């Protein structure tokens, strides 16, 4: 079977410092990592491959100008971890958002031919809930299951385990307390919950060979795949700002007796 995995990269927040007072974000250490949820999606794909004959193909989540190297790095990592093929998209002049990317990826899936399962992360570190998976399912007209914790493939079906969020609606959910198990016909799109699976380490020999081989990631020209008119972003970003400041608490000082007195006074002031 063929599994396509969509992987993106993001700046590691550990290297970023937010200075609210100056209203700026400082990137002290520019280090990119694979989106954690996408990494879980890749692990899910590789685990399916471990148990059967499957081909895993890595595709990029983003299409940013001059970012060919960045995307290629994520794709190479996927190869070193066990993916069979990786395809990068080239030939784009400005940012493409999730909506536009959906068309590119749908075209790529078509071009790959015979894809049974598309896996990607349910969230991204920088934008939160990711629309990419659901949008892609809509465009491909495939069933979708989002926020999966586990995926199993049985013949032409996938069994997807999702966590139940607390809900007042009762009913027979099956699958034991706290989880639902969905059965979905393939081909399907499944998005994976971040942290659902522990990512494997790359295989050392694969890593060295993949990174030595300049041509190991295939390049597909976007213009050959879609009408670039479809790629114009639907949303225009007009600005960004920090969330409004919240009132901080009051720090009490002194001996325990003094602090108790002060606390009583503060409470009297607020409660009356």
């Amino acid at each position, binding site marked *: 079977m063929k599994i396509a995995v969509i992987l993106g990269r993001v700046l590691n927040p550990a290297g970023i410092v937010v200075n609210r007072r100056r209203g700026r974000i400082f990137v002290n250490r520019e280090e990119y990592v694979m989106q954690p949820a996408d990494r879980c999606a890749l692990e899910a794909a590789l685990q399916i491959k471990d148990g059967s004959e499957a081909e895993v193909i890595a595709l990029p989540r983003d299409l940013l100008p001059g970012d060919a190297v960045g995307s290629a790095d994520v794709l*190479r*990592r996927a190869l*070193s971890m066990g993916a069979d093929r990786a395809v990068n998209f080239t030939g784009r002049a400005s940012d493409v958002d999730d909506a536009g990317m959906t068309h590119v990826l749908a075209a790529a899936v078509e071009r790959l031919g015979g894809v049974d399962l598309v896996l990607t992360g349910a969230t991204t570190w920088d934008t939160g809930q990711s629309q990419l998976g659901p949008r892609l399912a809509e465009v491909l007209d495939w069933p979708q299951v989002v926020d999966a914790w586990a995926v199993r493939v049985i013949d032409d079906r996938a069994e997807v385990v999702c966590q139940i969020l607390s809900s007042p609606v009762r009913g027979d959910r099956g699958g034991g307390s706290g989880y639902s198990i969905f059965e979905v016909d393939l081909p399907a799109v499944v998005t994976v919950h971040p942290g659902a699976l522990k990512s494997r*380490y*790359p*295989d*050392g*020999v694969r*890593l*060295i*060979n*993949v*990174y*030595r081989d300049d041509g190991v990631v295939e390049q597909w020209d976007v213009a050959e795949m879609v009408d670039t008119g479809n790629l114009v972003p639907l949303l225009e970003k007009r600005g960004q700002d920090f969330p409004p400041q919240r009132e901080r608490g009051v720090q009490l000082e002194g001996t325990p007796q003094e602090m108790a007195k002060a606390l009583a006074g503060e409470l009297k002031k607020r409660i009356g």
Partner: protein
Amino acid sequence: MDFMLSPEHQALRRLIRDFAETEVAPVAADLDREHRVPHEIMRKLGQIGLLGVCFPQEYGGMGAGEIGYCILMEELGRVCTSTATNVGAHIGIGAMVIYLDGREEQKQKYLIPLARGEKIAAFGLTEPNAGSDAANVHTRAVREGDSYILDGGKVFITNGGYADVITVMAATDPSLGAHGGITAFIVETDWPGFSVAREEDKMGIHGTSTAELVFEELRVPQENVLGKVGEGFIPFMKSLDMGRLTLGAAGLGGAEAALDWAVRWAKTRKQCGVELAHKQSVQWMIANMATEIEALRSLIYRVGWMVDTGQPFTQLAAMCKLYGSEVASRAIDMALQIHGGLGLSRDFPIERFFRDARIAEIFEGTNEIQRIVIASDIFRQHGVRIRP
């Protein structure tokens, strides 16, 4: 001159750092406290292929060269000297002798499983009377039919308590000494006649096995002679030469860790109303540490490149070990000083690195021996053969 690491080496560094932070760092303090060898970590390193990082892929290794090995030791050295020491003894001296001087059959039989981490190696050189004077081995190897019978023992053998394969140096002809009298053997530790007498109680690197080995009528088949009979000293010395470089790399890692903690502490801890970072004494220490680290890093990777490109490196490798061990000691000492009382507390990692670092100036050739190697090489180039 291109000073950038190649893409594969950059990717390798990322992999190892990730592994070190996820698998090694969380248990490093426990290994020290419990005096426990990290068997689990060695197994996982083996699964990824890192226990053969510098050996060619055709022998089960990763093919990342000496530079790849330096990266491994540096990144492990940043989180746990004990783990780095286990790995270094396995790859850099244990298996390395087989790689440098083994016959094809020996490489097939031993190097491949060692490179894959299926077996662990150790290097059996040191004896009570053969420390710096390595050629003064008393372990006897007597030819008997198609085998050799080994009698004697070794001390201070890293990994000795659990290795599967040990490359042993023994005297086949005591009268000839280093020139014609010493032979190298590949010994399997489950053969009759091999035993581990005791483990040393050390100041640091508690997560390593430092064992005393005993050979009593240990029968070694002649196929397991490494190199030529009587010429075993050279392969062992070659192996030590190479091991020196990566020991320096482990020192680099330790120094980098020290700098990292020192900076973090200095920016947090307040004394007299200001953070320590504003004190010139502290700034000077940090600047000195950082400068030495940069110099060491350049030295290590340049020498790695020289090894990988087949250039002579003996003198430079000795410098790497000498400078690396001293830079690490200095940096860790300064970081400890910056932390004040907390630097002395076993609840913080610094004192562990302090104890662990001390051995680096002593083992694998004391720094005094390194200086002799360096000076010898310099004078040799001027036509003078110095007597140490």
